[in-house]
């Protein structure tokens, strides 16, 4: 499988603050990768480095090019949706489609119009008159209607209601994703996307804490629910990386513990990505 994104010791500093601290990773094609971290973890900085919007130290290659030097070339095959409304507010919806048609050879107007017909967005209205949800829908329409190999979503559901959040991810999966393409989704609402991810990256304070496939994550971590009165004795034996109380019982999150060896102590389950994230961030966020 070809490598789409390759970073080696990428560092970005703002004065004394290290927004990215020696980040190295490789992301192959055909993956849906969740970039998860708390606010200020460095998610947006990492994405902006990947899209050539920032200077950084170290080396990076995205789709075979150095993003900072060849951003225009990179953007021919990359789509980006930001966490805020970025479409030019003075443009009308129809003008935006005309503009995209002229400026991006991979833009499929018919596809965008078909998508927009499923919404209530009027073609003749200026973008500034649309609601936040409509603006995101419009941006999604033009992005998904553009033929690209990499789609970067930076907190795309920020400020949107629950119905539209679900719709956004199903649109991305149905209308965009296939095994030749890669999706990189930045979010701090992991429970929203964990069911669609193939890989997950945990980032905090500019450092990559964990980068693994969801499959391996399930194999590595396990969750044990036990009666509260057994907690003290088992804690010493199992060394959980985190624990919490639930309805009078104790829940342990365990790292690299054979599931078979836990049978008999209590209920063994595969933890959610959110639980693992909270556990790992517990002492660091």
């Amino acid at each position: 499988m070809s490598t789409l994104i390759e970073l080696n010791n990428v560092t970005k500093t703002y004065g004394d603050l290290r927004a990215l601290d020696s980040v190295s990773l490789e992301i192959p094609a055909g993956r849906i990768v969740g970039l998860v971290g708390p606010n200020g973890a460095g998610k947006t900085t990492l994405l902006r480095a990947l899209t050539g919007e920032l200077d950084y130290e170290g080396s990076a290659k995205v789709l075979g090019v150095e993003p900072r030097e060849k951003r225009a070339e990179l953007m021919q095959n990359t789509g980006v949706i930001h966490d805020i409304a970025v479409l030019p507010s003075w443009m009308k919806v129809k003008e935006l489609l005309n503009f995209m048609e002229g400026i991006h050879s991979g833009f499929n107007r018919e596809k965008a119009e078909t998508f927009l017909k499923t919404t209530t967005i009027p073609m003749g209205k200026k973008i500034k008159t649309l609601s936040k949800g409509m603006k995101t829908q419009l941006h999604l329409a033009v992005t998904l209607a553009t033929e690209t190999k990499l789609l970067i979503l930076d907190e795309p559901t920020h400020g949107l209601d629950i119905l539209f959040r679900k719709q956004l991810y199903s649109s991305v999966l149905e209308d965009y994703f296939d095994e030749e393409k890669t999706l990189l989704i930045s979010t701090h609402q992991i429970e929203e996307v964990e069911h669609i991810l193939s890989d997950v990256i945990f980032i905090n304070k500019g450092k990559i804490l964990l980068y693994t496939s969801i499959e391996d994550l399930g194999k590595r971590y396990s969750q044990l629910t036990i009666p509260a009165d057994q907690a003290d004795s088992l804690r010493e034996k199992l060394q959980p990386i985190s624990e919490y109380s639930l309805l009078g019982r104790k829940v342990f999150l365990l790292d690299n513990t054979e599931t078979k060896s836990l049978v008999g102590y209590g209920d063994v389950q595969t933890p959610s990505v959110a639980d693992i994230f909270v556990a790992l961030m517990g002492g660091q966020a």
Partner: protein
Amino acid sequence: MKPLMMLLKREWLEWQRVIIGTILVITFLNFLMLLSVARGSSYFHETLQREGHINLEDIKIDDENIGNIDIRMDGNNVEIYVEGENAAGDINHALEKASTPVAFGLRLGMQGIFIFVLFLSLFYFSDAIYKERADASTLFYRSLPVSDHHILGSKIAAGLIGVIGLTFFLSIEYLLFVRLAITVWGEPVNTMIAAVFKQISYVGLMWDWFSYLIYAAIRMGPLALFLMLVGTYVKGRPLLIGIGGPILAAISWSIIFQSAALFKVIGKFFWGFNLVIIDSWKNAIDGIGDGSIPYANPWDYIFNLETLGALMASGLLYYALWFVYRKNIPTG
């Protein structure tokens, strides 16, 4: 090339209301001029009908001779008599001489339009980058397969083409309205002024004017780029900071160091395009009567060291603009 054309078209879409609004304002002013002429014409013809003739005394018709022009009504016909020593013989020479101040007048009207458009262009250049930072659309443009040079180049080109194109278009409209005003005035003014206007080369006037606008575009490069640079960095009020900042700095400099050096530098590199306006004005004041031409050779302005200096300053400012623009500094 296509992305650049699309980005230029984007500039047109964004600014078309300002451009069309400017055309409407100037057209309205032209109509006001036409209305004033029509009223003046009515008064003139009423006087002519009442008095039977209008005598314009002591008109200088060449360097030596002073003559009278007597306009008389003969039934419905209007007759013009030129009285004075050798006046009749010098009539062509007199018309030729009269064409010089008329051409000056036309040129000054066009320069007035240029100053108006120039004023609007200051808003354009200071907002060119600032606006896309303010509404975050800079992130959208950076997600497209276009380079920073494409984006910046389209904005600079759109601004300069806009200043030249709009001024030139409005200048032609102005000349047409002047011609219309003469027709509205009616006889005998129409015949008299037409005879004077025949002495003016419109092609020469417009070609020189166009060349001058090219020169002005080159010389206003540093100002345009400086305003764009300010708009790339500041958090608000780019025009106020872009214009007020250097003036405040120059005033401070002159008070602290008792020297107008900074004013001179600012004047040389940021207001060089005014040179032709100032020169033309001097020509208009001093030159009438001593045979000077209303439009100096614009190529002399274009091919000189100061213009080269302006180009070099533009190059440096463009590099600074590109460098700061790359850093993608949001307003919020």
